[in-house]
Structure formats: structure tokens, C-alpha cells
């Protein structure tokens, strides 16, 4: 079974072929993903859905290059990241991926501003250029009045907005978000989704988002369903 994008080859950003991932725990062999194919177009906003334990996070982590597959290929922007060494993969992530986590994962000892600046330390930007980028990113998430606040002085929604600013400040090709609204109430979650929408529409970012919430998934252009490690076809719109 495969769910591949319908765009031309030139527009495909992520091309996943025959991807498999399994964990070995002692004698036990736990297959999580099996022979999975998936294409994501450039500037596409994809929602990844499925029951708990179906392998959504695992797939997202593989696409983001923080986990290694057991087999198959993950070609992102022409590079098969499954073959990259750890160091090369780290450089690749710094240059191409923006991360948004369910629990924000901000550095508690750094201010909102410094948290957003963090990924820029891996670039060759000057101090002044970094400040300008950070200011722009914080402006985008509408947090300019909270730049000197520490994470524990911010609400969950505000923290997630800082995290979104951190994800976009390096101008990455791809933004991955694992249940970005999972820890937020409906209203705040809605604001976060609005921001993701902005990133997609205004900045043309490719976004892959894992979510349990059908409403959140509805904001995406396309929904992909995962069940027991394999993709199942999207139910036709209107069908029950």
C-alpha cells in the first residue's frame, strides 16, 4: 500500500521508499514501520494521523533525521539522509529542519530571545545579523513584548510560540511538529495552528505535523493515516 504525492518529480521534497523501522529488545523484535512509501511536495502541509503506537512519531523522527531507519530510503531535497553519517546528519538538520515539540523543549536558563537565537549559533551569521533574524522570528509569532522572559514566566501557548520562532529562525526547508497542540487548550492550540498556517501560506514552508486532533489535522492540506506501521488510504472526503 502506498500513498504518494501527486505532484511532479521536481516538486517533491520528501521521497520515502520501502521504509522500515524495527526495534530489537533482547530476544524481542518489534517492527514499527514496514515497507512504507510516502511523498511530500515542496510547500505542502501534511498531517500525520493514526492511533497511539501506530508509529507516527517514529516516522516523523526519521524524516527529521533524528532517528535512523532499519531499511529503505528517505530522500529529502535530493539527499538520502538514511545514508548520512551522524555528524553530516547533524549539519543537515541544522540547515534544513525546524523542530516543534509537544512540550516545547525550550532551554529553561535562556530567555525567549536567547532560545530563538540558539540554532543560529550553528550558522556563520554575525551577532548583529542573528539579532535581526531573532527579532523577525519573534515578530512573526507576535511575541515581541516577551523577549526577555524565561520559559517558566511564559504560558504554554507562549512557550510554543517561542518554539515556533526557534523552528523558523534558520529559514529551514522543512518543519516537523509532533503534536504541537497536544499540551494546549483549544483556543491556544488554535493560535498555534494559525501560526503554522502562516508559515505554510506566507513563507511557503513544508510542514509535517503529527496530531491526534482531527480538527488540527483539518488545517493541513493533506491527511495521511498510519495504522500499525503502514499507511492507509485517506477516506474520501464526505465518506463515513
Amino acid at each position, binding site marked *: 500500500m502506498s500513498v504518494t504525492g501527486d505532484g511532479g518529480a521536481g516538486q517533491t521534497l520528501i521521497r520515502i521508499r520501502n521504509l522500515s523501522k524495527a526495534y530489537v529488545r533482547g530476544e524481542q523484535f518489534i517492527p514499527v514501520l514496514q515497507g512504507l512509501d510516502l511523498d511530500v511536495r515542496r510547500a505542502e502541509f501534511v498531517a500525520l494521523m493514526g492511533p497511539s503506537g501506530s508509529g507516527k512519531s517514529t516516522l516523523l*523522527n526519521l524524516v527529521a533525521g533524528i532517528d535512523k531507519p532499519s531499511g529503505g530510503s528517505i530522500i529529502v531535497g535530493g539527499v538520502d539522509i538514511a545514508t548520512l553519517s551522524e555528524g553530516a546528519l547533524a549539519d543537515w538538520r541544522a540547515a534544513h529542519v525546524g523542530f516543534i515539540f509537544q512540550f516545547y*523543549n525550550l532551554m*529553561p*536558563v535562556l530567555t525567549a530571545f536567547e532560545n530563538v537565537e540558539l540554532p543560529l549559533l550553528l550558522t556563520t551569521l554575525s551577532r548583529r545579523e542573528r539579532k535581526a533574524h531573532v527579532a523577525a522570528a519573534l515578530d512573526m509569532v507576535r511575541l515581541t513584548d516577551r523577549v526577555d522572559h524565561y520559559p517558566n514566566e511564559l504560558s504554554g501557548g507562549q512557550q510554543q510560540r517561542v518554539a515556533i520562532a526557534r523552528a523558523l529562525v534558520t529559514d529551514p526547508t522543512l518543519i516537523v511538529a509532533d503534536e504541537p497542540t497536544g499540551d494546549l487548550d483549544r483556543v491556544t492550540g488554535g493560535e498555534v495552528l494559525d501560526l503554522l498556517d502562516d508559515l505554510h501560506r506566507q513563507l511557503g514552508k513544508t510542514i509535517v505535523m503529527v496530531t491526534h486532533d482531527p480538527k488540527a489535522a483539518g488545517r493541513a492540506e493533506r491527511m495521511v493515516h498510519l495504522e500499525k506501521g503502514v499507511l492507509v488510504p485517506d477516506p474520501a472526503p464526505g465518506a463515513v
Partner: protein
Amino acid sequence: MFVLKLLLKNAFRHRLRTLLTMVGLIVAVCAFGLLRTIIDAWYAGAEGTSSTRLVTRNAISLTFVLPLNYADRVRRVEGVTGVSWSNWFGGVYITERNFFPQFAVEPASYLALYPEYILPEAEKKAFLLDRQGAVVGRKLANQYGWKVGDQIPLRGTIFPGTWTFTLRGIWDGVDARTDEAQMLFHWKLLSENLRARGGQNADHVGVYIVGIDEPNNAPLISQRIDAQFKNSLAETLTETEKAFQLGFVSMSEAILVAVNAVSYVIIVIIMAVMANTMMMTARERLAEYATLKALGFPPAFVVKLLFGESLVIALGGGILGMLLTLPLAAAFAKAVGTLFPVFVVSDTTMLLQLAASVTVGAIAAAWPAWKMSRIDIVNGLRHVG
């Protein structure tokens, strides 16, 4: 710099924990420094010696004396520039607890051989002229509040009776290594007293102090002196002043080895404590290190953060400990009085304290840094919540 800011903020994240770790370090580094200073004090007698002085004693043992008429023969030996002699007196000032060394010496030649005892010319003259006179080091004078002109009664233990001396001078050491905790008086006084009692040791001396022209010739000159008295009734053994002093230290060598070992054990203990603290700290931040790695930071960045943080804490505590050692050593020196004639925290000790702090910091960070640089990002990220 960003990294510096981050690691400094990390270091003081748990104020109390960092504070307690630092207190541990302060105590350990301070104790280490004090123990090393005690060892140094033990060897101070040997450190303060001059390479241009030899000591000639009876070859059998120090408790055997040498005839006075050896002085002339020693003086004629090639390379010898001066000869003096001294006897251990072993008197008690008021109570046994007030221990300090007293020597009956030939004053003029003795002071000539010890230029590091800085004595005002007038006091020196007064001492040489007064057979009942004595001179003491500054430290000893301060300890008992003696002033020039004071009468100092000593109860003899080897030589019976009460001996009263008039303090004629107080010397200052030329540097911190100079012994200022001794008392010198006229050998003639002792000798005449013995003669009056009909003692057979009246014309005998404990040791000869021999000045030489060239330190490199010490072995050769020693041989020449000892050859003079080969096969005589009292054969001699001549060695450098340093070797002579070390002979005393070697008697307490076992204690010193133990003190030395303890000083390092203290450092090892604080190292273990700090390593445990750093590991605990690192574990709590697992998700943060995983996040940093996810963002693309290399393992070396995590290593840098942990080493930096550990070194900041270790050096902070270590330097405070070093600074605290100085007043504590001074207080200790005051408390023990003249038991240790020289009690100063040496540069070497301070350097060792610094090295110990850096080592503690580095070793404490080594294991956590290794572990945290190798964490699996996905597993690490799970530790949130």
C-alpha cells in the same frame, strides 16, 4: 560568549546544590593545603639549610660528643672557610610544653656561618660581650613576649640546675624559610659549668658546623674532614647541613607518608562527590541535551557545556579554598607556636591546590560528558514532562 553564558547559568541553576558542592570543595582544598603545609613545615629545617655548610658529628651517633681540639684540624682542611660548634642544651622554659631548641654555640664563628640571622650590630656586640647572654629568633621572642634585657630562666634536663640568661638580641630571618624559633647562648658558659662540676665532657662539643667555599665540593671536603680522624678514638661523620636535618625528618617519615596520603584521599573523596553531583545534574537535563543535538549541535558542544560547568564550580570552590587556606594556616601557626619554626603555605602547595581543583572539575565532568554526548536523541526527548 553564548556558550559561556549558558554554562554559567547552568552552573547556578540549583543554587543550593552548587553551593553545597562548593562548600565541599572549599573544605577539601583547604584541608589539602593545610596538610601539605604541615608536611612542608616538617621539612622546613632541611629546606632552610645552606649548601655552604657541613655538619660534622661523631660517627657512632649524635649522642656521642667530639673533642674540642678537632676544631683546629678541621679549620686547616682544604676548602674549609670557617668552623663553629654547638651543643644541644635541652632546657625547659617554665613547663615542658614550651618546647624550643636551645644551642650552646661558639658565638662569633657561629653567627658568621649563619648570615641569614639578621641581628642588629649593637645587639650582636652586646651578646658577644655577655657570657650570660643569649639571642633568640623573632618568632620565639614574640611567642613568649620577650624583649631585649629580659631574664630567661631555663631548667636544665641534660645539664642540671636552673640557668638564667639575659636576652641580648633578637634576630630576624632573611626570608620565610629561616628558622626564628631557636635560642643561642655561649658554649663557654656550658663548658665552664661542666668543668666546675668536674664533668668529663667539658671540652667536648656536640657537632661542628663547617663553612665551605664551594657547594659542589661538599662531598670531597666531607671526605677530607672524616679522613683526618680515621682510626682515632672519636671518628667523625660529615655531611651537608641538609642531609643532617633530613636525618631528623626521616625519624617521622611514616607519619609524613600517612599525612601525605590522607591529603590526596581528601581530594579523591571530593572528586567522587562532585562526579556524582555532575552525573545527577546531567541526567536531569537529558531532554535539553537531546534537544540541542536535535537542533544540530554536535556532541562536542554538550561536552563543552558539561566540562565548562564542572570547571566553573570546581575552580570557584578551589580558589575560595585556596584563599581560605592562608588565614587558616596563619591561625594554625599561631596556635602551635614554635612547634613548627617555619609554617608558610608555599607556592607549590597553592599550585597543587589549583591543579587539584582543575582535576576534580575535569574528572567529575568526564563520565557525564561522555554519556550525554552519546545519548540517543529520540530517547532523550522522551524525558520531558
